[in-house]
């Protein structure tokens, strides 16, 4: 029964949705302090290559590789962030876009380590390693009626879902905290925030570095889900795609990023039945979206509307509304 329902195709799409959500959150975090950074593809690449190289050459466990990838991306994020965050708006966008390209060119040219544009293959696959582990301890997916690849992708998806829940929980908490308020203040008005005594350099670098860590983390996951990476994966197209996830869904709230990544990853798959035209529709939706709803699908007022409606449906207020209507 379970075996029939779990189609690896849907599990795979869902896994990519989860990775894209992490990427969308990474750009949401930098946007939440008013920084437009397009370096996420570069950080993603750093995370992916770090983790892939560590696990291939030093045979470290995947989890160590992934964490190392996130940490290295974070450190580079801080190093880049301190000078780059003197820039604002489009200038920062261009500088970070440039950074992403530099990273890609390094991957292309540092052939002795990265194998240039041939890319790295034979990266340990998260699911396949886990399957081996489970088989070693005497558990076979057959026992619960699953095929090997169903089991692999189910595990990968569960792990990614868990990671996402933790991340979303963490960042919604952070938004309500001192740090989140500081980010919002800086986004509203940098000068005013500084005048109120906020150390804006610290907070800006913090939000930039958080974005870098998340992007590196997502990149490392990407490497271990695909088992092959090449520099072309981390070109500026990727940075733009990630930005669109967040802007489309709504860059003011974290759920916007989640929604944007989910919707825009599902869309091309859902539109498969019209084959060649699907990216035309994808483009058209983006254009319409920017024309009619530049703040993104989900913003604070949409959330409030939901909150209100959910509350009134719970039926705490008897009769009051009827009176009003009469």
């Amino acid at each position: 029964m379970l075996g029939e329902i779990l189609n690896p195709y849907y599990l795979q799409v869902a896994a990519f949705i989860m990775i894209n959500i992490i990427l969308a959150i990474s750009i949401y975090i930098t946007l939440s302090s008013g920084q437009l950074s397009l370096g996420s593809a570069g950080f993603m690449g750093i995370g992916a290559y770090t983790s892939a190289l560590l696990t291939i050459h030093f045979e470290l466990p995947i989890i160590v590789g992934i964490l190392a990838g996130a940490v290295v991306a974070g450190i580079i994020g801080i190093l880049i962030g301190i000078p780059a965050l003197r820039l604002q708006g489009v200038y920062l966008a261009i500088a970070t876009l440039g950074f992403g390209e530099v990273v890609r060119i390094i991957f292309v040219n540092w052939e002795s380590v990265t194998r240039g544009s041939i890319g790295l293959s034979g990266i340990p696959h998260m699911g396949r390693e886990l399957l081996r582990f489970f088989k070693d301890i005497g558990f076979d997916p057959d026992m619960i009626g699953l095929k090997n690849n169903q089991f692999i992708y189910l595990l990968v998806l569960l792990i990614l879902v868990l990671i996402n829940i933790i991340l979303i929980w963490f960042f919604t908490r952070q938004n309500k905290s001192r740090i989140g308020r500081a980010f919002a203040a800086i986004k509203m008005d940098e000068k005013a925030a500084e005048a109120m005594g906020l150390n804006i350099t610290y907070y800006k670098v913090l939000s930039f570095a958080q974005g870098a860590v998340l992007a590196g983390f997502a990149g490392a996951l990407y490497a271990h889900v695909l088992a092959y990476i090449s520099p072309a994966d981390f070109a500026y197209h990727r940075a733009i795609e990630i930005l669109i996830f967040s802007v489309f869904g709504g860059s003011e709230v974290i759920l916007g990023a989640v929604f944007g990544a989910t919707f825009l990853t599902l869309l091309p798959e859902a539109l498969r039945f019209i084959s060649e035209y699907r990216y035309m529709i994808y483009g058209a939706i983006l254009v319409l979206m920017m024309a009619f709803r530049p703040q993104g699908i989900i913003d604070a007022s949409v959330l409030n509307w939901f909150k209100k409606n959910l509350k009134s449906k719970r039926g705490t207020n008897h009769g009051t509304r009827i009176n009003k209507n009469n």
Partner: protein
Amino acid sequence: MRRVIKKSYLVITALMLVLLAACGEGSGSGSADSKGSSDGPVSAKIGVISYLTGPGAAYGEAITNGFNLALEEVNEKGDVNIELVVEDSAGKQEQALTVSQKLMSDDEIVAILGPTLSTEMNVVAPEADINGISILGTSTTAAGIPQIGDYVFRNSIPESLAIPAALEKAVAAYDVKKVAILYGNDDLFTQSGFDTMKKVAEDMNLEIVTIETFQKGQSDYNAQLTKIKDLQPDLILASALYNEGAVIMGQARKMGIDTPFLGGNGFNSPKVIEIAGEAADGLIVATPWFAEKENSKVQAFVEKYKAKYGMAPDQFAAQAYDALYIYAEALKNAGEADRDAFRDSLAEIKGLEGILGEFSFDKDGDVIMDPTVLIIKDGKFQIFE
């Protein structure tokens, strides 16, 4: 705050439910009717992963056209009855992987053709191998692909076969001692071509006077060409795609370099002549595909293709056309629409006559075939003697 967490749970759960519900529909529908009965033709579904949207869509289109043309003929013949399920990968690894999962999880699909790019193949092939479904690349020429697993094949001539053939003939014809190499280092295809060129040149004891690089989309190659001109090589090995390659040749000839060029598979396109004009004279390439070959099969293919799609077929269309014939033959020999039986009979294909020539697989699933060496002379591809 707690509400937000709850909501995010809700969103994720809802999402999972949608996905689960959606897959319930797909996998339920019949799977028993695909096995061909022993007396009629074997019928089977074959999955195709192709690059149909995005900047490289022209490749995917040519490939799918090739498949469709061959499909009509194969089904008309009546030995087998094949149905193609074509899916787009948009040239992205993620999409190629997800769509391959879609095809592999459909039990009716016996084997897969494609994907178009070597980068996509690197991601899809290990997955196909684990799931025990044959996959054959018609345009993936990078090194190491059929070696990924037992179920991975290709019918496109790898650079390691094409370049030595071309180089041997060129060395014999021009008495080459010194070569210069020029390659694009930010593309899997040209990089892999360069690795082969360097190795072959070293194996043949040629002196490599310089190695120069360029990037995709570059428009000025004077710096590299000036250096090459001073060193006076007897032959220039250029691992480039035709769009950059044609510009390089144009600038080289203007500069007064009249050394012949030797290119890889990506340099082999009639577009080179279109872009570079007279400057394209002296380009040597080894190719499986030569449209002017005096062979009735080749000519019939070219004519049919032109009539149906309104343009001349390129090597991608030709390789795809042959690939479908290879699959049809394997399916006929297997006698049933079973993935493992299909794989075994595919691996045994030997000496199959196609429009590219006589085709066999080696033990890895790689190509054994003699490429044709061509040279551009008087604005036309001709056989290089």
